[in-house]
């Protein structure tokens, strides 16, 4: 039962700049691995989510990743890479 899943999920933040507006990977991921958060908290008002660099995406629950690559396929700017451990690929 206790299978350790240790994928390397990288996000190129130079390409992925508006995750809250795009949200394709967030919505397609079956185990809901990703979360988004705002980089700076502004008291009382919301930043423009379409403005690049206001929100950031993080593969927080990456121990649930199955390596299905749906997020990589759906990313419009090719910012995501998912690399499963070698022993799982053979």
């Amino acid at each position, binding site marked *: 039962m*206790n299978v*350790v*899943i*240790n*994928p390397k999920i990288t996000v190129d933040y130079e390409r992925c700049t508006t*995750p*809250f507006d795009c*949200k394709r990977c*967030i*919505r397609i991921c079956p*185990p*809901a691995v*990703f*979360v*988004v*958060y*705002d980089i700076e*908290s*502004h*008291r*009382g*008002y*919301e930043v423009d*989510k379409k403005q690049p660099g206001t929100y950031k995406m993080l593969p*927080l*629950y*990456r*121990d*649930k990743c199955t390596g299905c690559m749906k997020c990589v396929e759906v990313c419009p700017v090719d910012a995501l890479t998912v690399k499963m451990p070698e022993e799982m690929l053979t």
Partner: protein
Amino acid sequence: MCRMCDWLGEGQIWYKNPKLHANRMYKLREPGRKPQESLRGNIVGSNLHEALEAKANGDLATFNRLIAEKNAADARKVGAQPIPLNEAIEVIKTLQMPVAAMMCICRKATRAEEETNLNEYSCLALGTGMFKWERWPERYRGGVEFLKPQDACDWLEYWDKRGMMHLIMEEGNDFLGGICNCDYPDCNPIRQRVDYGLDQQLVKGEYICEVDFKRCNGCGECLGRCHFNALKFEVTIDRPSIDPMVCFGCALCQTACNRGAINLVPRSAYPALRNVW
């Protein structure tokens, strides 16, 4: 009785007695009653990210230690608790306090869901504190909409119909902060309890759900309503079965049943469940 009933309920279900929350919910103080002593102890920051990294890296010892630390810290606070729809409605009606609908902060993070108007909101905030929401930080950015108690109850029924369970949350020590309407995996407390064993920030409800096999005709309306993997359809007996050890008592399956075949039983009615929270 859960730990909140011991602390706040004086032998009764804690969220049912408005007087116990009067200190801060209404900005009133009963004569001779002091503010509730802080139950919080030292606030430990969430190490969840660190714990999840350790788990992914195969360092289960660190993962277990961080989770245990978080649980020990959470055990000194009031936790969130699932409540059945009728009790959520009762809370709204009996407390007679300001009620406002607002966005869900968990869904914003986990599904990038932006709720900006009453038709999209999925969370109820309670208490006089909500009059100051505009001064408060990012939690309320989606705006809030103040509701009449009856309208708030109608919205609760709507959310229940959609399949969202009701979580009563506290804010401060003797202050009912709100009623969240959540689902797995979007809701952080649910997900972190079910997947990662944070079992103190979300406490099981005061009831469990039980199927009355005589009334049930096996139609399956309740299937898919359980967010905790407690309810399964048992093919052999052609009836759904609910694992009482896993059930959180949110009663979503009960409100889906057309035949009244699912009953709520107080957790204290069964010896083995009395201390399962």
